[in-house]
């Protein structure tokens, strides 16, 4: 009875996991089929011939090199600046004592309740006003601050013993060198999480880059990919190849750092 139930559980799980993984497998499978083979119905399960050159063809069908460069720069800098602003704010809220701390903290918390649909149009106008259309600044700065990241780092700094900062100060260590040489190295695991999440969010972001870029040379991979799919003449094997190389960097990150990804994404909730 007990083992029967267990087997049933495994069966249900396996069916569910197959259903979840299927689109990814199908994406890989279709990406190496010839255009002719892709028009078969019912489709062939295993590619008759492997057309790995689809990847090169897809890469050259649109300026993907440029898109990758843009997304790489934007995601890396977003992650870097986000980590910087969050670490500084987290240090202030987590370690330092100052008048008005709870008031300022409440003000920061209020940003959690600002709905993203409301900020879209005003931010678009702000970017226009600054003449930042088609610039990296427009793509990076709005995502370079986040309350969840600040909360994570505040928590990390609060976890450090207070005596540590006091001892450092008695030894003549300034607050800045304490932060740089002692505090930040100690909260490094959390810094990594914040940077990973910032990178992931920036890499996968679609609506904002769509709105602030009109110039093809400033498009990110997601916007480039969407334009690629909306162009009805592109063949499905090439589309699948393009989808493959757009998700590949993230999936590699994910497989390497899955624990950090899963737990931190789960704690920062649904955004996106």
């Amino acid at each position, binding site marked *: 009875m007990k083992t029967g139930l267990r087997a049933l559980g495994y069966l249900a799980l396996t069916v569910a996991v197959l259903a979840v993984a299927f689109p990814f497998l199908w994406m890989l499978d279709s990406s190496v089929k010839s255009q002719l083979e892709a028009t078969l119905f019912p489709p062939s399960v295993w590619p008759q011939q492997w057309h790995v050159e689809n990847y090169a063809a897809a890469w050259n069908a649109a300026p993907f090199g440029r898109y990758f460069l843009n997304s790489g720069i934007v995601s890396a800098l977003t992650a870097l600046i986000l980590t910087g*602003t969050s670490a500084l704010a987290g240090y202030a809220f987590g370690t330092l004592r100052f*008048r008005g701390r709870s008031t300022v903290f409440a003000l920061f918390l209020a940003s959690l309740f600002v709905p993203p649909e409301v900020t879209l*149009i005003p931010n678009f106008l702000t970017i226009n006003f600054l003449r930042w259309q088609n610039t990296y600044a427009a793509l990076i700065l709005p995502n370079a*601050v986040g309350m969840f990241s600040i909360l994570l780092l505040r928590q990390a700094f609060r976890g450090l013993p207070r005596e540590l900062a006091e001892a450092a100060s008695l030894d003549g260590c300034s607050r800045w060198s304490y932060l740089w040489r002692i505090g930040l190295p100690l909260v490094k695991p959390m810094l990594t999480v914040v940077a990973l999440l910032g990178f992931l969010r920036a890499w996968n972001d679609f609506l904002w880059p769509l709105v602030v870029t009109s110039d093809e040379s400033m498009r990110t991979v997601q916007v480039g990919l969407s334009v690629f799919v909306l162009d009805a003449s592109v063949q499905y094997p090439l589309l699948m190849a393009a989808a493959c190389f757009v998700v590949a960097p993230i999936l590699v990150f994910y497989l390497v750092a899955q624990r950090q*990804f899963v737990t931190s994404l789960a704690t920062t909730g649904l955004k996106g």
Partner: protein
Amino acid sequence: MRRSNRRIALVRGEERDAYLCLIPALVLLAVFQYWPVLYDVYVSLHQWKVVEQGYVGLANYQRILGDADFGQALIQTVYYVLGTVPFELALGCGIALILFEVKHGAWFYRLLFFMPYVTSPVAVAIVWRWVLNGDLGAANALLGIFGIKSLTWLDEPTGILNPLYTALGLKLPDWAAGPSLALVSVMIVTVWFYLGLHIVIYLAGLTAIPREVREAARIDGASSIQVLRYVIFPLLTPTTFFLLVVATIGAFQSFSLIYVLTTNGSSDIGSPLGTTLVATLYVFERFYQDLQLGYAAALALLVALIVLAITVLQFAVLERRVYYETSNE
């Protein structure tokens, strides 16, 4: 003099440093989070086509009242929320319950379930367009194995209840036909995308339930079903409530996945026949295609207020049924 005030100076210095640390984040929050809320209200009170064209008071809001297309978009949004959130919760909870009992390889299952959520909505939407393709898609091939006729999925504008009515010989107005099959397809993809997150959060909720509580119930003679019904589910209500609130907000704000699944060419958003045009897509259409910024700003604010009202309602109606443990010690 300096020496005696050293302690105060130290504290002062700490205060100054603290505010210096907060400035970068605060500036960015002010420019891209706080100011936009005020500015959105300002824009919504103006005629604004690319540039400001004069104050119009509440005219944009009055226009919403007579906008049947927005009404339709709201109905479709409600379908979308009702067709995704309960399924995400139920499947997430069910799978988490099984996964929790799994001794070997649980991490592998979790890894796979969570995979859609880390990949980009644009890429997975493209893959799903291919899987659900009406002529060549894998989904239809699967139906074919079971002898079921091919469906048109994302290209099907007729309501899913239509065949039922036809079979019963009833003739009902369009609104009673339910969401289009296209919108249902979008819902399926949405549930697929967010399922992993729900599983992971439910797993965290299950881990937080003390082992002794379950064991005590079993020793007192409760069956597995009874443990589930009277112990596990009540202790999971905080998780369920949190996910309900967050997933509802998320469903109302969902954009990228729906946009890439349902846009054809560069202008046909929410196809077929606008049956997948949910509120966020409708606002985007007014804003980005028609460049009616004033009207779009008013719509965005209204949608945000509707979401707020629903969240408040969920708290008012459901929160007292949530079981919060008062003490762990």
